[in-house]
Structure formats: structure tokens, C-alpha cells
């Protein structure tokens, strides 16, 4: 089987008609489509999904309304229609499928809801049209929707595979059920369930008939009663399961909302930090301004400082001069007293000899000169110290002197300027963040998180209740089986025509049930073997010994000590998911077309190369939808060059339009 082409017309960003011609397996198994984010890679995948099942999904498997799949420019035009078609060949039968959506004739203006549009589907098998009523049935037979997750590989799949590791998770059960469908298990599981129902019906008929038989009346009534109890328990369990499914859906939806607000939460944290810094900056600035104000009270002294210093210098010099004069004057007074004593006694005051007339005349002249010198020295002193004659004046001059506050004030001003500039930056950033998060209610986020916790606890309680119901049902089924054995072993049972039917259905049910257990065990072993082989080729961690499968088809990585690796990176999850897909393909013993959206995004260059080398082995046609950040055209593709049949590029035309262009080799 291979896909020949996929054609999109006015589908999402693909305005007009765009065709992805997929190379035939002998032309190269890999078709690479390059496209930047938001250009239309996922739209290509959704195009194929919508063509087959009339559904398209956004992130977290949120359904997209059909009317929103129509390109906006096309929707606003007179044509207002879109279509997707494909041709594929399987077992020498050629299928051509087209699905179209057109605005209803009576709708005026742009269609805004699905009811404004009409969908039509056309299918041809080897050129022969298939009647309308059988088309969906043919598609369901050829490509059941539940297995689409294995050939339409997107990011959602990775998240789903992680749930496979949670034992008894409802979602895990749903996925493992889809996996078993890929592996052909529904033949056995449906058979078992059908036979169970047929046996129950036959038992009821038998019980009714045997109420007339005296020996079996009691057992027949008892069995009918227990069967009624089982049915009630099943109804209750199914109700609980629906409740649980609703709860898990609510949790998923809340988590999607919370994931969307995660970025806002980081902004909110950033905002808190900026506000704290702003507050700190404002407080520091106020402190600095206070200090500056205090310093300014004595800053005028700095202005007077040169003059005060000059005046003070003069005062100091005058004081020194005065001290010198005082010292000189003292010496003169002492000399004068000695001279006057000599004049009076006529003797030398030092050696005591008699002074002659000439000596006395010299002493008298010297005394006179000393007197005159004293008079002139005192006058000079008084005028010199006139300015500071008063001690109070000197004290006042001292008061005019102060510490050098100017330098400190300049430092403060510099720091304040710095704070103002920094605060402007903080305020701008706060404004930017506020603009971004103004639409987000942080209280609502907190409430949602609490709700997720509450619902998760509730879902856990529901799981326990469902498990208890299942245990009760199993116990009652055992009671019924015992009663059936008693009834069947009684000869009187032959009086009921339905007794033989009960025995046959019972045997067939037992055979199918045991075969399912046996087949599941064998299939899981095969999936584990193939997945381990793929994992060893894909992983760069050589010490891991392989993968171990769970009852849900989840896969654990096993370390060299045989222990399960508990913490797995996003990259490891991707490698394990790819290994599982490959194993399922191989166990299903056939290869088809696989379309993979951004499969290398979470991986390092070594793992990317490993996967690229492995991709050609994963199917007879692999369409890789990648952006150039995850796959370098030249270096990345060189390792699989011989397998690459075609390369396309999704190019931007406008915000709402893209074009699909084939690139030359």
C-alpha cells in the first residue's frame, strides 16, 4: 500500500489548491516537508485526518470546528468552500477519497458555525464510485479511526504514551485497547464479549424455563437474582466510569488552561521581583534624600570655608607673633631690672665689681633704649591681635568651620541619579509585564490549580470504587458459574431447551477468554522484543539494556542493574514512543505510510541523527513535517540522502496564507 498524493484546497492556511505528491516507495521512502512554526505543518496532518474521519484537532486533542478549518480568505469569498482529497493504493486496489465542506446556499455572508456548512464525501474504488451510505463503513474497515494515532504521529501521542505507564489509568486502557486493535485483537475480545452476552441471555431463558422444575426452581431463581445484581453493579460501574471519564476530561481541560497560563505565572513571579526591587530602590532613595537634607543644613559652611580658613590662618599667625613678642618683652624686663639694680648699687649684678662712670653711662643709655623698645613692641602687639582680641570672636570663627559635606552630597546625588534611572527601567518592565498579564486573573489560576487537585483526588476515589465494583461483579459471576454448574449437572436441566445453548456459549466464552490471555502475553513479548531492538538503535545511552513492557503496552527503560529508570526526560519519552510505534508496525507485519509532525523537536543532535537513520525503516513511506531548527537541510539530511524522495517547503504568503512548494533536489 502507498499514498499517492494528498491535495488540500482552501484548507486552513492553504488557500487555493496545494498537492503533496508523496514519492512511491521505490522512489525514496522519506518525504520531508519543511515549515516554520504556524505555517501549516500540523494543518497537513489535520488535512489527512479530516479527510479520513471528518475531524481535526488542536493541541491537547481539542476538536477544531469544521467551519474554522476553512481558510479565512476563502470563507470570505463567494466560493466559501474547502476540500481535501487523496489517492492511495492497497492490495492493488486504488482508492480515491474526497471530502468537501461548502457554505449552505441560504447562508448570507461568512459561515461562522458548522451548521452554516454542508459536508460531502466521495470515494472511488478502482474508479467505481461507492454509494454514499457505505463510504464511512469502507473507511472504518480500511482505516479505523482508533488506529490513526499510529500513522498520524503528533506531539499528543507522546503524552498519551506516558499515560500507558500508569497502571489502571482509564486513558491508558483506552490507548492499549487501540494498540490491540492494531494487532488484530478485537476479533477475540469482541468474540468473548458477544459470547458473554449470548450466554447471559441463554441463562435467563434457561432460568425462566427451569422455574417449573421443582428440583431446580431454587437455583434458577437464585441465579436470576444474582444476574440482576450483576447487571445493577455493571450499570453502577459504567455510571462511575462515565463520571470518571468526565472528571478526567475536566482535569485535562483545566491543565490545558493552566499550561497556557504558565508563561503568565512566570511573568507574575518576575513582576513580584521587579516590584520588590522598585520598593527597595524607592526606600533607599528616600533614605539618601533624608541624609542629603541633613547635610545641606551645614553645606553653606563649605561655601565660606576658603574665607574662614584664610581668616583662621591669620588669627593663628597673629597669635604666634604675639607669643614671640611676649617672650621678648619678658627678657627685656628682666634685663632692665638688672641694669637698674647696677645703676643703683654701682656694682655688676653678676660678678660684683665696681662700675666706673663710662660703664654706668652705657647702662643708663641701654635702660632708656629698653624702655623705648617696650613702648613700641606693645603698640604693635595690640594692633595685630585687634581682630581676635575677643575670645568670643575666635569661638565664632571656629563655629563657621565644619566637616567637608560637599563630597558626601555629591556621592548621594550620584546614587540618587542612578536609582532614578534604574527605577525608570524597572517601571518600564513592570508596565510591559502588566500589559501582558492584565487579561489573566491570578486568583483564577490558583482556584484552577486547587480544582485540579480536588478532581484528581476524586478521580482516584472513583478508580477505587470502580475496582471494587469489578471485584464484586467477578465474585457474583463466580456464584453464577457455580449455580450454572449445579443446574447443568442436574438431569432436570434437560427439560429446558436453552440448557444446551448455555453449555455451548459457556464453552465458547471460556475458549475465547483463555485465548485472549495467551495471545496478549505472546503479543506483548513480541512488542517488547521489537521495541527493545529499535530502542537500542535509537538511544545514545549504550548502558541501557532494553525496554520492559507493562500490561498496558507501556514501556519501561531498564538500566544495567535490571532496574527501571524512574525519571525519563522528554527526549527519552520520544525515543520510547518511536520504539513502540516501530514495534507495533513490525508485530502487525506490514508497513504503511507514517506522517510525523515535529518528531525531532525534543531531541539532541545525536538522537536526531539516530532517528533520521532509522526513519526509512519505519514504513514504506514516511512523511516528516519538520522545521529547520530541528533538522538542518544540508547536514541533517545527508545521512538519509538516498532515502529522501521529495522535499517540500511550506512558505508564508501572508499571516493567513501558506503555499506548499516542491524543492529541487
Amino acid at each position, binding site marked *: 500500500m502507498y499514498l499517492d498524493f494528498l491535495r488540500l484546497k482552501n484548507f486552513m492556511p492553504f488557500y487555493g489548491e496545494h498537492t503533496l505528491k508523496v514519492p512511491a516507495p521505490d522512489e525514496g521512502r522519506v518525504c520531508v516537508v519543511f515549515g516554520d512554526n504556524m505555517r501549516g505543518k500540523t494543518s497537513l496532518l489535520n488535512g489527512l485526518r479530516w479527510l479520513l474521519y471528518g475531524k481535526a484537532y488542536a493541541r491537547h486533542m481539542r476538536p477544531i470546528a469544521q467551519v474554522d478549518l476553512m481558510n479565512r480568505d476563502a470563507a470570505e469569498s463567494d466560493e466559501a468552500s474547502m476540500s481535501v482529497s487523496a489517492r492511495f493504493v492497497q492490495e492493488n486496489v486504488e482508492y480515491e477519497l474526497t471530502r468537501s465542506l461548502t457554505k449552505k446556499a441560504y447562508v448570507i455572508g461568512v459561515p461562522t458555525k458548522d451548521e452554516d456548512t454542508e459536508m460531502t464525501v466521495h470515494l472511488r474504488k478502482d474508479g467505481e464510485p461507492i454509494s454514499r451510505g457505505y463510504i464511512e463503513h469502507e473507511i472504518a474497515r480500511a482505516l479505523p479511526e482508533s488506529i490513526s494515532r499510529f500513522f498520524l504521529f503528533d506531539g499528543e501521542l507522546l503524552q498519551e504514551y506516558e499515560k500507558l505507564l500508569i497502571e489502571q489509568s482509564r486513558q491508558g486502557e483506552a490507548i492499549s485497547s487501540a494498540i490491540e486493535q492494531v494487532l488484530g485483537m478485537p476479533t477475540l475480545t469482541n468474540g468473548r464479549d458477544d459470547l458473554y452476552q449470548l450466554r447471559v441471555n441463554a441463562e435467563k431463558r434457561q432460568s425462566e424455563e427451569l422455574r417449573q422444575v421443582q428440583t431446580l426452581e431454587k437455583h434458577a431463581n437464585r441465579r436470576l437474582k444474582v444476574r440482576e445484581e450483576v447487571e445493577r453493579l455493571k450499570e453502577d460501574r459504567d455510571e462511575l466510569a462515565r463520571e470518571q471519564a468526565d472528571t478526567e476530561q475536566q482535569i485535562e481541560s483545566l491543565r490545558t488552561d493552566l499550561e497556557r497560563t504558565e508563561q503568565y505565572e512566570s511573568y507574575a513571579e518576575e513582576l513580584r521581583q521587579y516590584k520588590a526591587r522598585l520598593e527597595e530602590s524607592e526606600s533607599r532613595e528616600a533614605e539618601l534624600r533624608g541624609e542629603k537634607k541633613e547635610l545641606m543644613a551645614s553645606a553653606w559652611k563649605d561655601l565660606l570655608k576658603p574665607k574662614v580658613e584664610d581668616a583662621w590662618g591669620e588669627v593663628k599667625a597673629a597669635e604666634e607673633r604675639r607669643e614671640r613678642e611676649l617672650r621678648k618683652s619678658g627678657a627685656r624686663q628682666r634685663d632692665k631690672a638688672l641694669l637698674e639694680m647696677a645703676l643703683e648699687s654701682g656694682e655688676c649684678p653678676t660678678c660684683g665689681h665696681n662700675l666706673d662712670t663710662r660703664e654706668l653711662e652705657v647702662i643708663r643709655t641701654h635702660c632708656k633704649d629698653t624702655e623705648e623698645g617696650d613702648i613700641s613692641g606693645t603698640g604693635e602687639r595690640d594692633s595685630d591681635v585687634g581682630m581676635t582680641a575677643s575670645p568670643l570672636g575666635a569661638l565664632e570663627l571656629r563655629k563657621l568651620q565644619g566637616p567637608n559635606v560637599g563630597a558626601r552630597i555629591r556621592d548621594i546625588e550620584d546614587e540618587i541619579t542612578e536609582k532614578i534611572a534604574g527605577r525608570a527601567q524597572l517601571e518600564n518592565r513592570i508596565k510591559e509585564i502588566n500589559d501582558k498579564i492584565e487579561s489573566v486573573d491570578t486568583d483564577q489560576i490558583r482556584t484552577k490549580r486547587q480544582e485540579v487537585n480536588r478532581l484528581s483526588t476524586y478521580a482516584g476515589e472513583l478508580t477505587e470504587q470502580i475496582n471494587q465494583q469489578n471485584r464484586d461483579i467477578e465474585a457474583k459471576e463466580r456464584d453464577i458459574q457455580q449455580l450454572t454448574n449445579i443446574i447443568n449437572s442436574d438431569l432436570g436441566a434437560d427439560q429446558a431447551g436453552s440448557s444446551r*445453548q448455555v453449555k455451548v456459549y459457556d464453552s465458547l466464552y471460556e*475458549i475465547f477468554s483463555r485465548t485472549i490471555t495467551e495471545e496478549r502475553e505472546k503479543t506483548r513479548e513480541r512488542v517488547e522484543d521489537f521495541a527493545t531492538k529499535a530502542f537500542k538503535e535509537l538511544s545514545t545511552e549504550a548502558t541501557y539494556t532494553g525496554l520492559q513492557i507493562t500490561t498496558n503496552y507501556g514501556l519501561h527503560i531498564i538500566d544495567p542493574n535490571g532496574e527501571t529508570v524512574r525519571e525519563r526526560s522528554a527526549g527519552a519519552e520520544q525515543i520510547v514512543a518511536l520504539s513502540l510505534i516501530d514495534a507495533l508496525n513490525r508485530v502487525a507485519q506490514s508497513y504503511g505510510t*507514517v506522517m510525523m509532525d515535529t518528531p525531532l523537536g525534543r531531541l539532541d543532535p545525536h538522537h536526531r541523527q539516530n532517528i533520521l537513520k532509522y526513519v526509512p525503516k519505519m514504513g514504506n513511506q514516511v512523511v516528516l513535517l519538520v522545521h529547520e531548527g530541528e533538522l538542518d537541510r544540508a547536514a541533517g539530511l545527508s545521512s538519509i540522502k538516498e532515502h529522501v524522495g521529495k522535499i517540500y517547503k511550506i512558505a508564508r504568503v501572508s499571516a493567513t496564507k501558506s503555499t506548499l512548494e516542491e524543492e529541487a533536489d
Partner: protein
Amino acid sequence: MPGQWNRMKNMSESEHMLNTLKSMRDEIEAEVPNDLLSRVFEIERERQFEESRSRAQSEVREAVEDWLSKQDE
């Protein structure tokens, strides 16, 4: 795409599953013949992708009743 899921269209796989059913029949010594077991398996294989089980159940019931009536003859 077709082929991946198509294990049951592969006859050897189908035969393998039927053989497992038959060996289980022998193991529990069930009083149902291989013909009836094969017929039930065939019906379920054909109807495996149908969501409503009423048609499959009705065909299995017919097969069982048909076999029982032949036993009476």
C-alpha cells in the same frame, strides 16, 4: 495507513489465532466442535470493526442454534 493495522488480513496470522483457539478448546476439553469454533471466529473476524455488536451476536447465535439443531437430527 492500511497495512499497519491489517494483521488480521494476513492469513497466516489469522490461522495462528484460530489455532490458538483450537488448542484452548482441546486444553479445556470443551464439547464444541472445531467447525463451530471456526465459524464463530470467522464471524467475529468479519465484524471486528463494527461498533454495534447486534449483527455479530445474531450471526453467532444462528451458528450455534444451527449446530444444535443438526445435533438433534
